[in-house]
C-alpha cells in the first residue's frame, strides 16, 4: 500500500481554483520531485500534505492517518510528516542543538538527556556535529538549512517534505544541502520535494511530477520524462529552464 495517498484533492483560494483534483500515490522510500511554473500549485500541494494549507474536497492519507477537508487538529499527521522550508525558519533564540531538541522534548516528551543524544546524532547526520551550541545567526545559509533538516528528522517522520530548500541559498552552498538530501534518499527516506534543481531531480528522483494549472500534467520516471516530454507544456517548461 502507498505510504502517501492523495485522492481527488481540490483547493480554492477565494475564487482561484488552485488544485483541481490531484491524485497521487507515493510509495515508501520514493523520492518525488514536484516541478512546474510558479502558480502551478506545487507548493500548495506540498503544504496540504502536512496541513499547513487546508483543502476543500478530497482526502489525504499518510501512513494510515487520514485527513479530511477543513480538519484542524493535525498533530498526529504532523508527527509523521516532516517539513523543510525555503527560508530555513530556524528558531533564532535557540542554538542549533536546542532547535533540534525542541519538538522531541515538548511534543514527544523525551527526557532531556535522550533528546540531547538524538539531537547530536541528527546533527552528525547532516555533518554539523560541532555546531550544537551555535546560534542560527552564527551559521551560513547552507548550515542553517542542514540544521533545519536535522530538526525535521529528529521527529522521525515517515515522509519529509522539502519546499524549494535550496532556492534561498547562495550557489556555492546549494551542493552541501543537496548532498544531505541525497544521503537521506539513499537511506530510503521518503521525500517529496518541490525543486528547481532539475539535474538533482533527474539524478536522485524516482518520480517526476509536472504540475500545470492546478493539475498533475505529466508524471513518470525523471530520465524518461525529461528525455521525452509528452505534452507541449512540459517541453516548454524544460526548454525555459535549460
Amino acid at each position, binding site marked *: 500500500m502507498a505510504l502517501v495517498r492523495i485522492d481527488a484533492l481540490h483547493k480554492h483560494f477565494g475564487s482561484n481554483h488552485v488544485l483541481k483534483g490531484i491524485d497521487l500515490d507515493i510509495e515508501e522510500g520514493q523520492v518525488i520531485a514536484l516541478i512546474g511554473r510558479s502558480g502551478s500549485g506545487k507548493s500548495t500541494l506540498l503544504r496540504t500534505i502536512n*496541513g499547513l494549507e487546508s483543502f476543500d474536497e478530497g482526502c489525504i492519507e499518510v501512513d494510515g492517518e487520514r485527513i479530511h477537508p477543513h480538519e484542524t487538529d493535525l*498533530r498526529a499527521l504532523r508527527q509523521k510528516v516532516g517539513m523543510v522550508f525555503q527560508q530555513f525558519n530556524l528558531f533564532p533564540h535557540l542554538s542549533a542543538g536546542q532547535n533540534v531538541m525542541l519538538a522531541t522534548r515538548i511534543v514527544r516528551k523525551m527526557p532531556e538527556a535522550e533528546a540531547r543524544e538524538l539531537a547530536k546524532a541528527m546533527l552528525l547526520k547532516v555533518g554539523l556535529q560541532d555546531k550544537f551550541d551555535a546560534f542560527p545567526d552564527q551559521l551560513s545559509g547552507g548550515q542553517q538549512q542542514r540544521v533545519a533538516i536535522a530538526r525535521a528528522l529528529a*521527529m522521525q517522520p515517515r515522509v519529509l517534505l522539502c519546499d524549494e530548500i535550496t532556492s534561498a541559498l547562495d550557489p556555492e552552498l546549494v551542493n552541501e544541502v543537496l548532498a544531505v538530501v541525497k544521503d537521506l534518499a539513499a537511506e530510503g527516506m521518503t521525500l517529496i520535494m518541490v525543486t528547481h534543481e532539475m539535474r538533482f531531480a533527474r539524478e536522485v528522483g524516482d518520480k517526476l511530477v509536472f504540475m500545470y494549472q492546478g493539475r498533475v500534467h505529466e508524471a513518470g520516471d525523471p530520465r524518461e520524462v525529461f528525455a521525452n516530454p509528452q505534452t507541449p507544456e512540459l517541453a516548454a517548461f524544460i526548454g525555459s529552464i535549460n
Partner: protein
Amino acid sequence: MSYVFDFPAVFEHTDALLAGTGRTLALTAIGAVAGIALGIVGAVCRAWRLAPFDRLFAVYVELIRNTPFLVQLFFIFFGLPAIGVQMNEWQAAILAVIINLGAYSTEIIRAGIEATPKGQIEAAQSLALNRLQTFRHVVLPPALLKVWPALCSQVVIVMLGTSVCSQIAAEELTFAANFIQSRNFRAFETYFIVTAIYFLLAIGIRQLMMQIGRRLIARRP
C-alpha cells in the same frame, strides 16, 4: 553664596533612606514581574483577537495610557473604598503599579508578537507543536527579546513613577526624603542624595534587566 552644605545631616537618617530604597525596589520588582505577566496576557488577547478579552484589554490600555498615574493611584486608594474595596497604602500602590505597567507592556509586547514571521509559526506547526506550545516556545521568547529594551525603559519609568506613592503615605524613597528634610530642614542635601539614589537605581535596573533578557530569554552566555 553663604549656604553651608551639611550632608552628614542627611546621613544621620541612613536607616530611613535604606528602608525607603528597599521598599521602592520591592514595589518595582513586584510591579515589574506582575505587570509584564499581565502585559503578556493582554498582548496575547489583543494579537490573537480573543473575544471579548481583546476589546476589554483595548479599553483598559487606552484608559490607563491616557490618565495620570497619580490619579489612578488616588482612585484606587481613596475612590474604591466608597464601593467597599478597602486597601492599605501598599496594597493600593502595588495594584496601581501593576495596572499601570500592565497597560504599557500589553502594547509593547503585542508589537513583538505581531512581528513574528509567519515561517516561524509554520515551522513549529510542522513539528507538531500545538498552539500553546508554539506560543510559549517559539513566539514569545523572540517577541520579548525584540521589545526587551522598550520594556526595560518602561520598568524604569514605572520605578521613577513610584515616587508619587508617597502621596498615599506608602513609605518608599520619596516619602523617606520628605520625612528627612522635614526633620533636618536640609532640602538641598536630602533631595540631592535621593536624586542620586534614583539615578543609580534606574541605571542598575536597566543593566540588570538587560542581563536577564540575554541570559534567560536568549539563553546566551
